[in-house]
């Protein structure tokens, strides 16, 4: 049975460590498939102007395309060069909730993420995405320091 691992990236350099760890783990497991996921933080309850709404679909496509080309595709290419079976996905939403949803939908066995690069008051009040993921995930989560 193929083991599926989801690697959550946040677009920061620390993501490389998560990719390296996932590659090592996949090699040890053997029959393994890697899914690189990038979540664009977004809330359906935010407020926008009418003009922003009218352009939202276009902006969403641009955001997905940019995330794919700058973060996900290079990561997937790197994994493939190392002989891995890898693919990528970009989604909008709450980072922790969406990563877990991706795992459930894809039938993944584990999520690998890096320690959060978030800081400031938001982190203090709401907690980091990584901490929220660890608290709410329905599959094992490995956090790379």
């Amino acid at each position, binding site marked *: 049975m193929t083991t599926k691992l989801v690697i959550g990236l946040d677009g920061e350099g620390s993501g490389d460590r998560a990719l390296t760890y996932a590659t090592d783990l996949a090699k040890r497991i053997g029959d393994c498939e890697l899914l690189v996921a990038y979540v*664009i933080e*977004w809330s*359906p*309850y*935010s*407020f*926008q*102007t*009418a*003009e922003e*709404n*009218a*352009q*939202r*679909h*276009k902006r*969403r*496509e641009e*955001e*997905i395309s940019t995330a794919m080309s700058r973060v996900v595709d290079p990561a997937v290419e790197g994994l493939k060069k190392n002989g891995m079976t890898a693919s990528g996905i970009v*989604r*909008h*939403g709450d980072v922790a909730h*969406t990563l877990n*949803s991706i795992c459930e939908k894809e039938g993944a066995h584990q999520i690998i993420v890096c320690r959060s690069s978030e800081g400031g008051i938001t982190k203090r009040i709401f907690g980091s995405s990584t901490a929220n993921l660890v608290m709410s995930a329905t599959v094992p989560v490995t956090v790379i320091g």
Partner: protein
Amino acid sequence: MKILNKALLAAPAIAAALPAQAQDAMSLDERVNTIFAEFTGPFVSLIFAPLPGTSFPWIVLWLVVAASVFTIYFSFVQLRYFSHAVSLVKGDYSDPDDAGEVSHFQALATALSGTVGLGNIAGVAVAVGIGGPGATFWMILAGLLGMASKFTECTLGVKYRNEYPDGTVSGGPMYYISKGFKERGLPGGGALAILFSVFCILGALGGGNMFQANQAHAQIAGIVGDYPGWITGLVFAGVVFAVIVGGIKSIANVTEKVVPFMGILYVGAALVILLVNYDQIGWAFGQIFAGAFTGLGVAGGFVGALIQGFKRAAFSNEAGVGSAAIAHSAVRTKEPITEGFVSLLEPLIDTVVICTMTALVITISGQLLIDPDTGLYMLDGSAIATVDGNSGVSLTSAAFGASISWFPYVLAIAVVLFAFSTMISWSYYGLKSWTYLFGEGKTSELIFKVIFCVFIVIGAAASLGPVIDFSDAAIFAMAVVNITALYFLMSIVREELRSYSERLRSGEIKKFAH
């Protein structure tokens, strides 16, 4: 907003430092007012012409009849699908794969930011100040009926919107009138769409712009002392120009986030006042019901109360006007009717909840003078006499200030922000109509945006009467065209409703697990 606030604070100081110029400016205000009143008079008279042999404006009957027809035609859709509308706003039926698109909540919030504002604060004060507390009853009734109008127009708004190859969308009455009429083989769709666009541009310049600038100025002047309106107008015009022409999104973004907060604060303050005066709530509702059918001495009796209530409700929630269809058309959904369901919450929040709060606070505050001998309201001309002769937003401010002394300051900020947010929304509605008429393009858009900003200055400088009359007339003129079209297109909405309700019942349409 810092720039705006600093400028607003500085404006009276500038006026005081330049007395000679201020003197000229006052005469400039008067000149603007006179020219404006003369220019718009015939249009206003036509829209508000009374029914033969009565003092009842035909336009008010037009709106109420339409809302009643839609309510009956769709079998009280506002009651039957109310809980479903709430589920849609919560995102229960939103596909998680569509995350990042415009949600039902966002479309509703955007539309509300264009309607919740001065209509709820100043408009209600105008209605209650002239029509007495009884106007509130008719306002609530108009709000409840108006939910069906909103449902009809917003469903069509999404169904017939234009989706361009680059992913942007344009929707609204001008699109559903032209496309819907063509689809049904009806003549005159193109001409009606053009007529709607013309009225929408006038509405954007009137109710969506001049009325906002005018009342924002009244509120600021009420706190910092009287000064020429054109100063407020110039400051507002500068900031709006920076956003809609300069593309300074940060100002709009801050406003869009602060406005909902101010709305909650406003309702919260009203609730606190009502709780503190809980022993008078029963009396206030008594005044509302008694006034609704007797007038309690207001000019025109109960018909006067009814006219004011219906007029203000229509101006506040814009049901049947068509503006909401432009705002709601951006939502991402495979089922246009879902946005219709969501939109019917708008008049409920705007009119039934927020406007009623304002009316209750004004009634309870004792700002409206009652003759102790007769128990009827005392008149000052055609309006009810108030404690300090206040009307419009100053009356609401005084009513809140009677219980919470510092609230007029919060209200002043709220009014400025509401006015600003409504202007931004209406600049978009007007722009969409403008581009429908003159085509998309940077030069064409810039011309409209500059005209829009010029009208801010005129609105702030003119006096309340002519501005309110023109604002109402322009908005209601949109409703004349829009509702005419809705009568011809409502069968399309009924077919959508039938299909959707069948699939909802059969379980084909179901909630997503989030």
